């Protein structure tokens, strides 16, 4: 059994999360059970105006019906095409791809730092940790966006029972400011025992999180993005430079990288 498959899946469920965000659930995907948070699927279209596949973080899976959820924001042609899919439409999944987040040890406090459309893998990660026996109350979920509507899917986050700290640039929901502010505060004030950061979001945010983690000597992992022609390591198109020298492929050595690894 090859670990990665290319398989057609149908759109089973479509939720409009408003403000250009959509949750799409596809299935059945034979590798749903093998998927791990931090990994992604590379999605190909039948009829398309885009040439590459598009990568989307896995936002959830259901081992029973082998379904897989992604959450996206419409920003260009590919995401538009995704959002325009209708129930029953079929796309091609290539996956699961990439290196998942690594589990914290039981002493550590997972601090999830999501920015905008970086939310999906962290939702999956929180769910996964809880399923693995983590106390939801011990999972810190920082979630930043420009404005209130950018903090999507709140009901589900609350239902998980994690320590949910929303932050918006304009203060229209949660704390006003940058999502990195409560992070810095928590680390500076030693609010949580052995913090371990998991972050996904815009590059500028990841860069800040990387600096913060490095400064406070807090371990963590960043889930990165890059334009991905192939998504599984053969094109060398998605590289990032490493601090230690050389380069790494985001799709293969990533998308999750330890804090301090990538030259951001």
């Amino acid at each position, binding site marked *: 059994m*090859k*670990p*990665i*498959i*290319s398989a057609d899946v149908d759109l089973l469920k479509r939720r409009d999360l408003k403000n250009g965000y959509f949750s799409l659930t596809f299935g059945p995907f034979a590798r749903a059970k093998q998927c791990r948070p931090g990994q992604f699927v590379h999605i*190909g279209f039948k009829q398309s105006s*885009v*040439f*590459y*596949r598009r990568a989307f973080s896995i936002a959830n899976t259901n081992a029973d019906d082998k379904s897989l959820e992604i959450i996206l924001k419409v920003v260009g042609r590919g995401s538009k095409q995704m959002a325009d899919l209708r129930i029953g439409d079929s796309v*091609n999944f*290539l996956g699961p791809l990439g290196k998942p987040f690594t589990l914290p040890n039981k002493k550590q406090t997972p601090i999830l730092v999501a920015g905008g459309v970086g939310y999906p893998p962290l939702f999956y990660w929180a769910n996964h940790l809880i399923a693995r026996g983590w106390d939801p109350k011990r999972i810190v979920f920082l979630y930043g966006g420009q404005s209130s509507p950018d903090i999507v899917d709140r009901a589900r986050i609350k239902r998980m029972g994690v320590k949910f700290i929303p932050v918006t640039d304009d203060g229209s929901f949660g704390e006003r400011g940058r999502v990195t502010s409560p992070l810095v505060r928590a680390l500076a004030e030693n609010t949580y025992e052995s913090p371990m950061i998991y972050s996904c979001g815009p590059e500028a945010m990841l860069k800040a999180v990387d600096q913060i983690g490095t400064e406070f000597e807090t371990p963590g992992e960043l889930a990165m993005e*890059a*334009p991905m*022609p*192939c*998504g*599984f*390591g*053969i*094109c*060398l*198109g*998605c*590289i*990032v*430079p490493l601090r230690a020298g*050389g*380069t790494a492929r985001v799709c*293969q050595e990533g998308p999750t990288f330890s804090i301090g690894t990538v030259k951001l």
Partner: protein
Amino acid sequence: MSKANNKPDMLAQKHMITKSKKPKSKTPKTKPDLSVEIAGYRFKNPIWTASGTCGYGEELDTIFDLNRLGGIVTKSITRQPRPGHPTPRCAEESSGMLNAIGLANVGVEKYVAEKLRFLDEYDIGVVVNVAGFGFDEYVEVCAMLADCPRADMIELNISCPNVSTGGIEFGASASDVERIVKAVKKVFPRPIIPKLSPNVTNIAGIAKGAEAGGADAISLINTLIGMSVDIYTRRPGLTNNRGGLSGPAIKPIALSMVNRVYDVVDVPVIGIGGASSAEDVIQFMLCGASAVQLGTALFIQPDLPITVERDLKKYLTSQGLTSITEIIGKIEKY
């Protein structure tokens, strides 16, 4: 990788690409025969993967069994390891893409020590693509591969348009191509396949130069020079400013050039450029290709070689043919 191993026959035996000695059997077969002979070697099918679009094979093997391929052409290697150009080094286009990876590779030494070894386990033709930044580098790298039995053949990337100091210059002049092929033939005992650039006025002339130099086969095309620009940042899509266009967009150009070259040389031609289906592979073969490399299409459908193999068989059966070789060059021009 001792010198003793370095015999086509032994190599062939090991990798099941048998050196063909006897003429093709004329008895009708039940199963359509996809095998093709190129430069004295028999490949189990004409489906190869193109240099730079299949890495060194490891990743592709996580998706389908590499043994299903006729051949693999590995990513261009150079004398020294190279990080390549900074990102962005790929850009999406209509039915294709631009790339200026910049010959990122592990260098020939690590390649021989690690990457080539991985392929030892597979019964496929291994074609090592070699690039250089000057005449001497090509010769040096090819010489270093002479003693590697797993390097069944060398594909000479004299056509990479991405590095301003090398590549294109050789590919654009028939006499340069002849000279470089002659030189590497002296240091590498197995077949040499120069890979031609499409960015030339007269592809037939270049091909004749390659043949005169002793090429055992000729592969084409490499990418077409292209460019893109972001209208908001005003920045080119690639840090190298220009890159190479590949994908279905270039297939008609590739078919035309393959056919031109097929018409003027006697050595086998290997078709490359936008092939994305069995139909495309058949088109290339009708135009004269003895094998076809799948490139960019692997990014879109990584298990494409499996589909193509199945569909090639279907096609042969539907056409009442027993061997894929029966279609090579059989286009019926007006």
